[in-house]
Every structure is written in structure tokens, then in C-alpha cells.
């Protein structure tokens, strides 16, 4: 493995060559008569048309519903993995093993095309409150949710394991059943540990919805901008359009990070901090992250 022990000089040379290549590529673009039209970029952000807004809305809706499904499945998955009953553990392990171990793109394809082609389930459109939800969106939400559930299982399990077993014992000694003790005592405390990685997951989810592009009929953000690139006055302006799409995604994830800070603050109730960090401090990173904000509980003082 020559490159591992390559002397500094060669690595520097490699980097320089890379930079040079990038410059050449960009200038090549400029030479190849690609005309930047930055108004497309700015209009897509500051004066979005109905398609873009619909795309934002769809991306958000799919993400939220899929994530909720993922959380619910994740709680069951985690309880299954920590269950005393062997078949429950098997089932949960099988679920997590399979859906974490196979590509999401394959799962999406299978759930929609695979099931409908074989006529196992053809995903007929559903009418909900006067809104027609096409099969592609249903299948997309289903696939994303089931996939997310596998990851959430591990996150929720980690949260449960982080709680002192004495909590479950105390709850049991007061006459609570396992289910009630989990619901009232363990899971609410585990939530504090779960939320930061859950934030990661939902952030990912917002962007991963773009994989639904392969289903064709799901005009979320990414698809909307791809279509714009292929039709009308915005045709063949991929840089401006996809940069604008990136800004939209960034906006969504930013809003989410603020919401996440709120949730963490709310769940921080009962931790040993003198004063919880304000949202502004959280979002802009003005306070040093402290272990107690994610829920280490000290016994006494």
C-alpha cells in the first residue's frame, strides 16, 4: 500500500493536482458556453412558485409521517430486542438485521414495484380529507418508515439501556407491571438520551426522501427541481437549480434543529443543571455542550 506511507511531498503534489483539476474543470465549464443564470437560483429561493412550495410541503409531510412510523416501530423493535421472550427477540433482531442491512433504494423499489407488479398489493390511491394520495407516496412513506424503524430500534434500545435498572425495580416494587413501568418511568427518561440521535435521523430523513425519485410520481423537493431542470425556461441550469434545492433542504434542517433544541430543553427537566441553556445558546452553540443536557443523572449531591 504505497500511498499510505507516501512521503509528504507526494501527498502535497496529489492535493495540488486535485485542485488544478478542479480549476480546469470549472474553467472548462465556463469555456463550454455554460451560462450561469443566478436569477433562477434566487427566484427559486425567494420567489418560489407553487411547484416548489408543494415540493417543500410534500418533503416535509413524507418525512414527518415516515419518522413517526419509524419511532413507533423503533419502540416496538427496542422492546422486542430487550424482551424476555425469545421469539420476540428473534423477530426484532430479524427486522433490524434485514432492514438495516439492505439498501433503502432496493426496499423502496421492492415495496412499490415489487408488490404491485406481482399484484400482491397494487397501492391504489387513497382519498383522505379530499386529498388524493397516490400509491407511490404511500409506498414511499411505508418504505422510509419501515427502514427508519430498524435504525430507531437501536437508538431506542440504547436509550433504554442507559437508564439505571434501579428505576425499573423501583417502579416494579410499587406494583407497576413491566409495560406500565416502561411507559411511565423508563421510556420518558430514555427519551432524553434518544432525542439527539433522533435529531440526526430526522435530519437524514428530510434529505433521504429524495430517494423516492425512483418512483417517478412523488414530486417532493428533489424531483421538483429535477423537473425544472428538464423543462421550460429553467432547462439546463442544474447548478443554480440544485444549489437552490440544497438551500431549501438546509432551511428545513435548520428549522428542525431549532425544534430539536426546544424538545431537548423540555426533556431536560429534572437534570442537575443550574439553568438550562436557552434556545439561542443551543442553536448557535454558545454554551459548551454538557453531559447533563443529555441526561446523566447524579444520585446525590
Amino acid at each position, binding site marked *: 500500500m504505497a500511498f499510505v506511507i507516501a512521503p509528504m511531498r507526494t501527498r502535497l503534489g496529489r492535493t495540488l493536482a486535485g485542485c488544478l483539476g478542479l480549476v480546469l474543470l470549472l474553467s472548462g465549464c465556463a469555456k463550454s458556453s455554460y451560462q450561469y443564470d443566478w436569477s433562477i437560483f434566487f427566484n427559486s429561493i425567494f420567489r418560489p412558485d407553487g411547484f416548489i412550495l408543494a415540493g417543500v410541503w410534500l418533503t416535509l409531510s413524507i418525512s414527518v409521517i415516515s419518522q413517526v412510523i419509524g419511532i413507533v416501530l423503533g419502540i416496538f423493535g427496542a422492546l422486542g430486542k430487550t424482551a424476555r421472550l425469545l421469539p420476540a427477540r428473534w423477530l426484532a433482531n430479524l427486522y433490524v438485521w434485514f432492514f438495516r442491512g439492505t439498501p433503502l433504494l432496493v426496499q423502496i423499489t421492492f415495496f412499490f414495484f415489487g408488490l404491485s407488479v406481482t399484484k400482491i398489493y397494487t397501492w391504489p390511491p387513497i382519498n383522505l380529507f379530499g386529498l388524493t394520495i397516490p400509491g407511490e407516496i404511500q409506498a414511499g412513506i411505508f418504505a422510509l418508515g419501515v427502514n427508519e424503524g430498524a435504525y430507531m430500534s437501536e437508538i431506542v434500545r440504547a436509550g433504554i439501556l442507559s437508564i439505571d435498572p434501579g428505576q425499573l*425495580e423501583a*417502579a*416494579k416494587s*410499587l*406494583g407497576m407491571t413491566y409495560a*406500565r413501568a416502561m411507559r411511565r418511568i423508563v421510556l420518558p*427518561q430514555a427519551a432524553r438520551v434518544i432525542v439527539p440521535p433522533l435529531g440526526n435521523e430526522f435530519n437524514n430523513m428530510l434529505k433521504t426522501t429524495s430517494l423516492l425519485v425512483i418512483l417517478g410520481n412523488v414530486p417532493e423537493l428533489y424531483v421538483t427541481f429535477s423537473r425544472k431542470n428538464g423543462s421550460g425556461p429553467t432547462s439546463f441550469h442544474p447548478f443554480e437549480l440544485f444549489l437552490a434545492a440544497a438551500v431549501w433542504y438546509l432551511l428545513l434542517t435548520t428549522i428542525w434543529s431549532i425544534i430539536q433544541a426546544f424538545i431537548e430543553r423540555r426533556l431536560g427537566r*429534572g437534570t442537575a443543571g443550574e439553568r438550562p441553556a436557552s434556545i439561542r445558546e443551543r442553536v448557535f452553540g454558545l454554551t459548551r455542550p454538557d453531559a447533563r443536557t443529555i441526561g446523566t443523572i447524579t444520585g*446525590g*449531591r
Partner: protein
Amino acid sequence: MVQVGKDLLATVGGLPAATSPIVVEASDVHKWFGHNEVLKGISLTVKRQEVLVVIGPSGSGKTTFIRCVNHLEKIQQGRIKVNGQLIGYREDANGKLVEDREKNIAMQRRDIGMVFQRFNLFPHKTALENVTEAPCQVRGIREDEAKTIGMGLLSRVGLAHKSDAFPAQLSGGQQQRVAIARALAMKPALMLFDEPTSALDPEMIGEVLEVMKELAREGMTMIVVSHEMGFAREVADRVVMMDDGQIIEDGTPEHFFTNPQHERTKTFLSKIL
């Protein structure tokens, strides 16, 4: 010194009605952790309103034993009955122990209060919420009623002013007093104390013992695993000494302080007194 109010039990309607003169009846209890036998045939009875203090070196099985009394630990042989009822198990047709259904075990635990060495308060709930949680959730008592009872108990243990504090904002002694109030709120017929003062700073031990003494005075049946010999001398009706999974001596506090028989007891007492 913390002022412990009188009539701790009056706040929860007094002692539960007597169902039998014998509250705890353990006979030939054996327990193994893997190949390690930690209880080697424990037999003892605790009468109603009796205060039993269990002493013994660490690893002698005393904590394991009281955890068996509310079935936080399984046993492999023998029987433990509380108020005449087999705890955690039922006997099948051949007289073999079969673990009971979870729901039934939970039902039995309602009447057995437990106080832990590490308090185990619910950190996401205030002191008052800790006390009202089980009465509301398990006994189905109305919230306002549970709050009245909870405030009554908290004020009796000297913590009315801390009802809205979270456990992390309380000292160890305060936490343990909340934990006792939490257990009492379920109106238990029996209280188990698992080294309730071992995790406390020395100056906080007194306030917790005060509450326990008051409980004993009011006639609560108690099993206390503790090395607080002052407490044993003052309130225990009986002391048992455990060593290596067995009860090696059983007697009144006077017996232990003046005339212990067993060599092991003598050396043990000489070290802790």
C-alpha cells in the same frame, strides 16, 4: 434536626387491616446465581408490627433475601409467603414452584413497600409526583386525592417545602425521605428497607432513621437490612445475623449487644460497633 411529624400512617388511612398475625413467612429459601449458592436455606417469620433488623457482612445474602420477599429476585427452592400468600409463585399439581403471571406479581407488590440503598427516585418527576405516581397509576386513586395524601406524607417527613423539587435538587437524606413517602403512599402492609442509610453522608443518616423510627412506633411491619446498630438497639424487636447465605443467629437486640453466641457474630459486631 428534621422534625418528623406524628401520624405518618394516618395520612394514608392508618395501618392496613390485619389479614394474619404472621406477615412474612420464609421457609428453606434457596437461591443460586449461576453455580453460586447465595441463600442456603433461609427460614424466618416476621410477625405483624414486628421490626426485624438483618445484619451481616457484605456478600452474606441479606440484600438478596429481602429482594426475594417482593420477588425482585427469583428463588429456586423453598417458599416465601407474605400475609399467607405465596410471593411470585404458585404451586403446580406436583407441588413444584411455577412463576406466577406478571400481573399477579405486580398486584402482590402493591402491598409491599421497598426503600432502596440508592433511593431510586424517578428523576424526571418532582418529589410530589414521585409520591403520587403509583397511587394514581396503580391504585387508580384520583389525582387531587393522591396529591392531598402525597403532601400529607411529604410534610410528615419534613419535606413539604420541597414538593416541587426534582430529586437532583435534593440531598441524599431528603431523597431517601421522599422514597419512604413514595412507598408509604401505596399503603403497604410491610416495608422492606435495603440498607437505607448506606449511601448517605453521616450527618444525613439521622433524619432518615427518625422517619423509620416513627414508622416503627406506629406499628409498621418492617424488615430492615442495616448496620445501624443504634437503630437496631432502639427500635428492633428482633435481629438476625446472616453469614454466607445462612442465618447464624437470631435474637433480641439485647441478646446481640450483651451475649452473642456465635463466634462470627462476635467478630462482626466488634468491627462495626
